[in-house]
C-alpha cells in the first residue's frame, strides 16, 4: 500500500511502549481510518513527541511505510489537547475502546472521524456526558451500517407512540408489548423517540436508553464486554458510597 505524502489529521486511540524508546500506536486518521503505526524514539528522554502522541490530542501526522503498520515520520499538534479529566477521561477511554472494537482497520470513514472529534470535544466541556455517549453510540452504529430502527414497530409497521412500551429486538427493531411486560429490553416509546430526535429522555428514560444501547452494543461486540465499563462501576457493593447520578447515568450496572 502506497501512502500519500503530507500531513493528515488524526488521533491516537491507544499507545503502548515498543522496544526501548518507541511507541506502538493505534491511530484514527482522517484518511486511513484506524491504523497501527510505530513512532520511533518517541519515548526517549529528549523526545517532545511523547507529550503529543497521547489520546485526546488532535494531531497532524505524516505517515510513511508500505506495510500495514505505518511509521510516524512527522507529528505536529493539530489543535489544543482536549482536557478530559476525571470522569470525562473514563468516557474518552470508553469511546476509544468502542472505536478499537467496532471499527475495522483500514476502513476510512470521514463521517466517523468527524463524529469522534465532536464527541471528544463535547465531552471536554459538557456535563451531560450520558446523553453524549448515547448519541455517539447511535451515530457510530449508523455509520457502520447497524442503524437502529427507532420510529416504527417492525411487526405492525405502526409509528412508535410515546405512551406505549416496546420490546427491542436487536438487529430488527421495536415491537409493541403489553404495559405489564418488564425486562431489560423493554423500553418506552418516549425513550425511543427521544433517542431518535436526539432529545433528553428524562431520568428514567436515560436508564432505559443506556440499557437498550448496552444490549445492542453487546450483541455487536460478540460477547466480550468492554473493559472501560468497569471504571464506572462502584468498587464493591457497600464498600463505597452510592454513586452520584451523573456517574450511574453513563453506563455502569444497576
Amino acid at each position: 500500500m502506497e501512502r500519500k505524502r503530507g500531513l493528515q489529521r488524526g488521533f491516537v486511540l491507544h499507545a503502548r511502549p515498543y522496544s526501548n524508546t518507541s511507541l506502538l500506536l493505534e491511530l484514527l486518521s482522517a484518511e486511513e481510518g484506524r491504523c497501527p503505526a510505530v513512532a520511533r524514539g518517541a519515548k526517549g528522554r529528549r523526545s517532545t513527541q511523547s507529550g503529543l502522541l497521547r489520546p485526546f490530542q488532535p494531531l497532524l501526522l505524516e505517515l510513511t511505510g508500505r506495510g500495514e503498520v505505518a511509521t510516524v515520520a512527522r507529528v505536529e499538534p493539530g489543535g489544543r489537547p482536549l482536557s478530559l479529566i476525571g470522569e470525562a477521561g473514563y468516557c474518552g477511554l470508553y469511546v476509544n475502546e468502542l472505536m478499537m472494537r467496532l471499527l475495522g482497520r483500514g476502513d476510512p470513514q470521514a463521517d466517523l472521524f468527524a463524529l469522534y472529534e465532536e464527541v471528544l470535544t463535547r465531552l471536554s466541556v459538557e456535563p451531560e456526558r450520558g446523553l453524549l455517549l448515547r448519541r455517539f453510540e447511535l451515530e457510530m452504529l449508523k455509520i457502520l451500517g447497524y442503524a437502529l430502527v427507532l420510529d416504527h414497530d417492525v411487526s405492525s409497521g405502526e409509528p412508535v407512540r410515546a405512551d406505549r412500551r416496546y420490546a427491542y429486538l436487536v438487529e430488527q427493531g421495536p415491537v409493541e408489548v403489553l404495559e405489564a411486560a418488564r425486562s431489560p429490553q423493554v423500553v418506552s416509546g418516549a425513550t425511543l423517540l427521544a433517542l431518535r430526535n436526539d432529545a433528553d429522555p428524562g431520568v428514567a428514560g436515560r436508564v432505559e436508553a443506556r440499557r437498550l444501547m448496552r444490549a445492542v452494543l453487546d450483541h455487536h461486540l460478540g460477547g466480550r464486554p468492554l473493559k472501560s465499563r468497569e471504571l464506572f462501576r462502584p468498587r464493591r457493593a457497600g464498600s463505597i458510597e452510592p454513586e452520584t447520578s451523573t456517574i450511574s447515568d453513563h453506563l455502569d450496572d444497576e
Partner: protein
Amino acid sequence: MGERPLLNRLLDALRCLPGVGPKSAQRMALHLLERDREGGRRLARILAEAMERIGHCSRCRTLSESRICALCGNPRRDASQLCVVETPADVVAMEQAIDYSGLYYVLGGRLSPLDGIGPQDIGLDGLEQRLAEAQVEELILATNPTVEGEATAHFIGRIAKDRGVRVTRIAHGVPLGGELEYMDGGTLSHAFAWRTEL
C-alpha cells in the same frame, strides 16, 4: 536431533534483557567466556538466587527479599503519608530524588482498559486495606501523567475520598531546564492551569 549448541542458547537467553539484541548478546557472551569466566559464574549464581528469593513486600508490594521491605519496616518512616506509584522502579526514582519520609504503595500497573487491565487487575485490594487501617492521613497519587495514569489516579482518589482520606496529586508541568517554546501544548496548558502563587 541433538540439543542446540550451548552458545546459541546462551545468546538467546541473554536477549531477554531490555535493549539487548543479537549483537550485544554476542558481545556479552563472548566477553564472559573469553575474559571473565569468574564474573560469569558469579552472575549466574546471584541471578539464580535473586530469581528465587526476591519477592514482593506484603505491605507495599515493592520488590523485597523479606516479607516486609526495608522501607515499610523502618519505624522512622511516617505512616500517615502514603504515596501510590505504578512500579517498583518509581519507588527507586522517588527515593533517590526527594526527601520524602512517608511510605509507598506499588500498584504494579495502571488502569488501561484498552490493554484489558481493569480495576480488578491492579493492586487495589491491598491499597483499600491500607486505607482501612486508618493511619493514613494523606494519600499522594504519583501515577504517571498519561491518560491511563490519570484515570488510575482519579479512580483511587475517589476510593480514598470516600474514606475521608486527604488526596493529593503530584504536580506536572514544565520540566526544569526546559524551554516553553519547545513544550508540547498539553504539558504547557497543564502547567499554566496549575500555576502556583509566588
